[in-house]
């Protein structure tokens, strides 16, 4: 194999969603040279572009609000497990980031000159800003990408998939990547490295994330020695679109519809049912994500589901005019998909949406490993056992900005690092094509089936144990040497590299879920219902000599800020 390509920078940012782009901007304006890379295209993949509507922030633009109220709601939603420092950072710094995005021209929806806020479940008041129509994520991505382009000192490269972080003398000093576009290995040395790779939704069959969110950031950080926390808490979005089949629409699009128009969740008897699970809705949208997911799955289990295995969501009480006022051109896109909301309900079901867990970090976004920072959904802990609606984009912006700041401060006191030790990863990428290699796309589908069927929102010991044994089988089939060859856009090789990470992360999620012998937030053990006080702990995952080790630490004491 040819010599690897080499690059050198002050700050390496891995992932170009909102968190990565904000981090790059912040580090560059502090005077650093930044290299922003993404396995997909810059500013196009990841979760940010998929955000449909709400961004939670205590702006107080329409009615009084204060970050401490947002903080209170975040801690309540987190069911006692939030990292208080991270949650506070998210809520307290949110307004500044949202206002800066406004000056950059993101186009938050306004009424009479003031930024409009929508009410979302779990919040004590209307607190979520958005960009019409269903355009929040694309607008945030496009705006940040524009600022990245205009900021001096940021070099960008898409099609660059990080295989592993590289260290020298215990410090992360860059990464080894596989350039998907050419098949060449690339060694990047950096004084500070920020992992902003998003979550793990791709582990599940039905998910609302991009195809490149397979938990790769968690896996590379774990292998580099950084602990992960709260990995058992996968958020399912209760009302993901199920039927009739849609194209060109995001499956989480019904959330904005519910924010603006209420809507009714109905079972097969065309009866509302959320009141049976303790949350009467009465046409309003108040049910939180963990309870909504549980209620829908239980209705289906009791034989009261819709034909495709979900429940109905109805806007038949809304007039055509009301629908058009709220969603304009989206109504025409629905018509093209043969959906007339005034005449029919649609079917919805829970869909993997977000990961509360992630890499353990402090409020400076530093991990336990020197030189390694994290940002955005890659960070674990801010949202505890259940994330409040609207916190994901806020978290991406705030944590991204903070990571950029910390990285810039590190760079100032760091001399040029010794070259990263890249030998092991380069050797991995030297793998020869295996003639008997199984179909990687099929293996990916198999892993998604295991996770969806046995490590979904409703769990039991038997299901989790079965999942672990299936994950082990996949791991054996995957082997230690990559499939495919070092050629441009060899998707079998890319799949192998992805599966290597996904199998690790799937095992971590499953083991953590097996150990947590209670039900809390997004982790519901059907064999162990109810929250237990002794489980007010965060589980910490480390890799020791290639083996996963899970320990417990008491959750940060929660002192309500707004008294």
């Amino acid at each position: 194999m040819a010599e690897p390509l080499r690059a050198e920078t002050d700050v390496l940012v891995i992932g170009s969603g909102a968190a990565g782009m904000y981090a790059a901007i912040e580090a560059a304006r502090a005077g650093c040279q930044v290299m922003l890379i993404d396995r997909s295209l810059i500013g196009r993949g990841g979760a940010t572009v998929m955000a449909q509507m709400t961004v939670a922030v205590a702006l107080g633009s329409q009615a009084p609000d204060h970050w401490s109220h947002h903080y209170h709601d975040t801690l309540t939603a987190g069911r006692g497990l939030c990292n208080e420092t991270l949650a506070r950072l998210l809520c307290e710094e949110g307004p500044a980031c949202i206002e800066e995005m406004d000056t950059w021209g993101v186009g938050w929806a306004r009424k009479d000159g003031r930024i409009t806020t929508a009410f979302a479940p779990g919040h004590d008041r209307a607190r979520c800003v958005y960009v019409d129509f269903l355009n929040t994520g694309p607008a945030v991505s496009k705006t940040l990408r524009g600022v990245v382009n205009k900021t001096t000192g940021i070099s960008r490269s898409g099609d660059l998939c990080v295989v592993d972080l590289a260290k020298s003398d215990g410090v992360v000093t860059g990464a080894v990547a596989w350039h998907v576009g050419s098949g060449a290995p690339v060694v990047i040395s950096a004084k500070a490295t920020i992992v902003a790779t998003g979550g793990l939704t791709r582990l599940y069959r039905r998910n609302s994330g991009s195809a490149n969110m397979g938990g790769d950031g968690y896996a590379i950080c774990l292998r580099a020695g950084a602990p992960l926390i709260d990995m058992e808490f996968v958020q399912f979005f209760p009302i993901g679109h199920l039927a009739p089949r849609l194209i060109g629409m995001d499956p989480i699009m019904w959330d904005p519809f519910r924010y603006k128009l209420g809507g009714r969740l109905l079972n097969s008897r065309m009866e509302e049912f959320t009141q049976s699970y303790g949350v009467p809705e009465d046409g309003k949208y108040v049910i939180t994500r963990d309870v909504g997911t549980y209620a829908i799955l239980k209705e289906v289990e009791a034989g009261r589901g819709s034909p495709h295995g979900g429940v109905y969501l109805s806007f038949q009480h809304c007039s055509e005019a009301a629908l058009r006022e709220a969603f304009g051109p989206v109504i025409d896109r629905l018509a093209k998909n043969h959906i007339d909301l005034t005449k029919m309900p649609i079917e919805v079901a829970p869909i993997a949406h977000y990961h509360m867990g992630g890499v353990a970090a402090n409020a400076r976004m530093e991990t336990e490993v020197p030189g390694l920072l994290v940002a955005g959904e890659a960070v674990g802990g801010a949202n505890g056992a259940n994330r409040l609606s609207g916190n994901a984009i806020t978290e991406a912006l705030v944590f991204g900005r903070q990571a950029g700041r910390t990285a810039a401060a590190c760079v100032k006191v760091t001399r040029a690092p010794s070259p990263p030790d890249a030998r092991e990863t380069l050797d991995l990428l030297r793998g020869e094509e295996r003639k008997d290699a199984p179909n990687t796309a099929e293996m990916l589908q198999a892993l998604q089936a295991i996770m969806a069927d046995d490590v979904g929102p409703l769990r039991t010991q038997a299901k989790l144990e079965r999942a672990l044994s299936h994950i082990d089988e996949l791991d054996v089939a995957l082997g230690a040497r990559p499939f495919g060859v070092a050629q441009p856009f060899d998707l079998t090789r890319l799949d192998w590299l992805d599966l290597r990470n996904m199998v690790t992360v799937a095992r971590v999620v499953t083991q953590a879920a097996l150990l947590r012998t209670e039900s809390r937030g997004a982790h519901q053990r059907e064999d162990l219902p109810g929250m237990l006080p002794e489980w007010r702990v965060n589980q910490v995952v480390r890799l020791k000599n290639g083996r996963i080790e899970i320990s417990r630490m008491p959750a940060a004491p929660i002192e309500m800020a707004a008294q």
Partner: protein
Amino acid sequence: MSEIATLKIWRGPNKTAGRFESYEVPYEPGQSVLDGLRWIRVYKDPTLAFRYSCINANACKECMMEIDGETIYACTTRLEPRAMTVEPLGKKKLVRDLVTEIAPPQERLRLK
């Protein structure tokens, strides 16, 4: 109910060294061409290369290609129970199969 969509797809590392290959995909109403391409990778040939991130939401804008001669996104084009021709973008540099170099030059790997 066993209708078939036949996708005639360009395979190869550049625009001269390559060929069209046909794949039969079980047709279900409401599928996109992108669904068909993903089906081929799982059940026929995992080496088929094409770009996509957001699956079917038309948010990432990565799956642009030429379908029956029209430049269009694979995720917003309905699969149909007939022969359909799928080619890489004609005006962009071909990387492999249906993948072209669509990123602006300043967002591509450029090493000194």
